[in-house]
């Protein structure tokens, strides 16, 4: 078994997964990498299916493929028709494509429909040591299970459908070591926002991140998914965490995991994955979790983040001209004044959801703050569970009643206002605090302005209608 023989060079988790998936690597060519699991959604796949038709190709491995509808689906009552005919057509097209090519689809009529990065893990399709791809940059989420999972474009979706393989170059390895204990009110979301603020949105380009250290080990699977999810926001295509007992306990009994003797064999394989002692990373960065505060972004990329108690940076403090222009442009878009705090800044909308923070533990965290309280009449608050399963579990616990009693909207699962393709969107000029992953210009609706934060910060902000440090409510 790789990595256990004394004569073998110690390997990182990333290198082990890589080596186990190289089908062939010819001189002067990229490696042909085998893909264990291909996740498909309605937005980035139609042109790929069309290309298959034109080239008269089929799907090589339908049972290694899993499709769902999430990005452009409405989150209102599912018995109502789509308001947007284009979205309706796109969702219908995925159904046509899956039927024609024989792919399993967890569509709007499925009790397992949801955001692709929420349902993969909860169905047990996401497993340690796998290579997982999807035409979606937040595929890194699945790295929480010790899988090499990354986003691909539509041409690559076509490649994987046709061949179950991709041409890839071996990434560099980048260790993100997070030690120490998080303080009250500080969450996994704050770890990843702090990391991106530190390394920048281009800091991980060409690399796969491996998150290590005591703070990471003590995170639940939901929390690990939040961390890995935003690896792409640091420029890394993927980010992963070695599987351990937390991982195996989460997986046990889920529908698509191996059963019986196959589970035991898989477990043995998975336990061989963690990085060997003495293995070297190309880069390393360390974070002290015990010093982190709740984080919030102020600008138009996820690297423009700061502690919630800090003040907005001044473009004139930057010496490089393009950096200065970029920050000045961002603050102009956000209509924020350099040097001012964000605490107390009014918001119009609070969005709790997305593949970053829409799992049961996220909803519990938000409900914990909102219980017995009312949201500000000035703020619209949307709570969007990541999947039908999460929604059912939350309702069994009565979380929906807490949200509704507080004045929140409790909506059907989907990507919703993270990407604003489905009608859930900010109006021009509106501000939101959002538990999603991107604060790009127009991301939550044309002209909308996004502050990224944790579910705790989002819930606290909802109550006051302005940016609030959750620690004042704990």
């Amino acid at each position, binding site marked *: 078994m790789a990595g256990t023989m004394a004569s073998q060079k110690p390997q990182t988790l990333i290198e082990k997964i890589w080596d*186990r998936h190289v*089908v*062939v690597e010819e001189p*002067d*060519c990229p490696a*042909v990498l*085998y893909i264990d*699991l291909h996740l498909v959604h309605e*937005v*980035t796949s*139609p*042109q790929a299916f069309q290309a298959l038709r034109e*080239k008269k190709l089929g799907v090589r491995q339908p*049972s*290694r*493929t899993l499709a769902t509808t999430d990005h*452009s689906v409405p989150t209102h009552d599912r018995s109502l028709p789509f308001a947007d005919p284009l*979205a309706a*057509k*796109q969702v219908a*097209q995925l159904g046509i494509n899956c039927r024609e090519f024989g792919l*399993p689809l967890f569509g709007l009529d499925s009790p397992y429909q949801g955001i692709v990065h929420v349902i993969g893990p909860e*169905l047990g399709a996401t497993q340690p040591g*796998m290579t997982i791809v999807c*035409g*979606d*940059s937040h595929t890194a989420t699945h790295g929480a299970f010790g899988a090499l999972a990354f*986003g691909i*474009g539509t*041409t690559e979706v*076509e*490649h994987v459908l*046709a*061949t*179950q*393989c*991709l*041409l890839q*170059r071996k990434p560099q390895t980048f260790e993100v070591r997070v030690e120490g204990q998080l303080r009250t009110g500080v969450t996994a979301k704050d770890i990843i926002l702090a990391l991106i603020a530190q390394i920048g*949105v281009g800091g991980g*380009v*060409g690399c796969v991140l491996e998150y290590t250290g005591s703070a990471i080990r003590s995170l639940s699977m939901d929390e690990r998914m939040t961390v890995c999810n935003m690896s792409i926001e640091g420029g*890394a*295509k993927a980010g992963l965490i070695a599987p351990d007992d937390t991982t195996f306990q989460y997986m046990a009994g889920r*529908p698509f995991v*191996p059963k019986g003797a*196959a589970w035991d064999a*898989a477990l043995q394989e998975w336990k061989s994955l963690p990085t060997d002692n003495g293995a070297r990373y190309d880069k390393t960065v360390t974070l002290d979790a015990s010093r982190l505060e709740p984080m919030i972004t102020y600008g138009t*990329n996820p*690297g423009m983040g700061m502690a919630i108690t800090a003040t907005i940076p001044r473009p004139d403090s930057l010496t490089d001209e*393009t950096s200065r222009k*970029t920050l000045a442009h961002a603050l102009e878009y956000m209509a924020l004044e350099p040097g001012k705090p964000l605490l107390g800044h009014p918001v119009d909308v609070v969005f709790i959801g997305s593949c970053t923070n829409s799992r049961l533990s996220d909803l519990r965290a938000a409900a914990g703050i909102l219980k017995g309280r009312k949201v500000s009449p000035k703020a619209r608050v949307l709570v969007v569970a990541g999947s039908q399963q999460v929604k059912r579990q939350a309702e069994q616990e009565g979380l929906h009643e807490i949200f509704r009693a507080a004045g929140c909207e409790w909506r059907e699962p989907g990507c919703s206002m993270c*990407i604003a*393709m489905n009608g859930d969107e900010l109006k021009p000029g509106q501000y939101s605090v959002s538990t999603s992953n*991107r604060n*790009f210009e*127009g*991301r939550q609706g*044309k*002209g909308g302005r996004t502050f990224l934060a944790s579910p705790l910060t989002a819930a606290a902000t909802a109550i006051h209608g302005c940016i609030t440090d959750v620690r004042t409510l704990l």
Partner: protein
Amino acid sequence: MEPFTKITSRMVPLPMDNVDTDIIVPARFLKVTDKANMEQYLFRDWRFDSDGTPRPDFILNQPRAKGAQILLGGRNFGSGSSREHAPWALLAFGFRAIISTSFADIFWGNSLKNGLLPVVVPPDAHAELFRLVERDPDASVTIDLASQTLTLPNGHAVNFPIDNFSKQCLLAGVDQLGYILKQEPRVRAYESAHPATVQTSVKI
């Protein structure tokens, strides 16, 4: 895919770092199921007002952008989402190459697969190019893929990196899928040696 060999063109400067694929093609235009009309979505919210009127101050609406094949971008160009609509739209507008000091990984791969050449230059050359277009907006540079050089009007040549496989595919205008399809016997052998631990088609 149209082959890429050599182009000589003006450059359209966009001196912003971390230009993301959401600004290149906003998500609300991703509801399409084909690749038609991509040109009109490019930099939509920087290019047009809410009523669709072109913003005269945005560089792509200025005469110098007309017919230009090279976009001179800031650092870490193409960050964010995996949407291939971004390179589709850049190509549909007429760009064949983007110059930066670095590119986001997924955008890089998507561009190469569509015949859009990402050209990575060192920071000093990058700064020199911005100075050049500021002095002379009509200055043309030549990008020659075979020799992997970008040549300035003064004859100064800068080398840029690209892996040989992608380079050969671009020069010939061939799709990378053909190469993977040719590996089918090896893929089959890999599959028989590595049974699946997931069967998504099983009813649950």
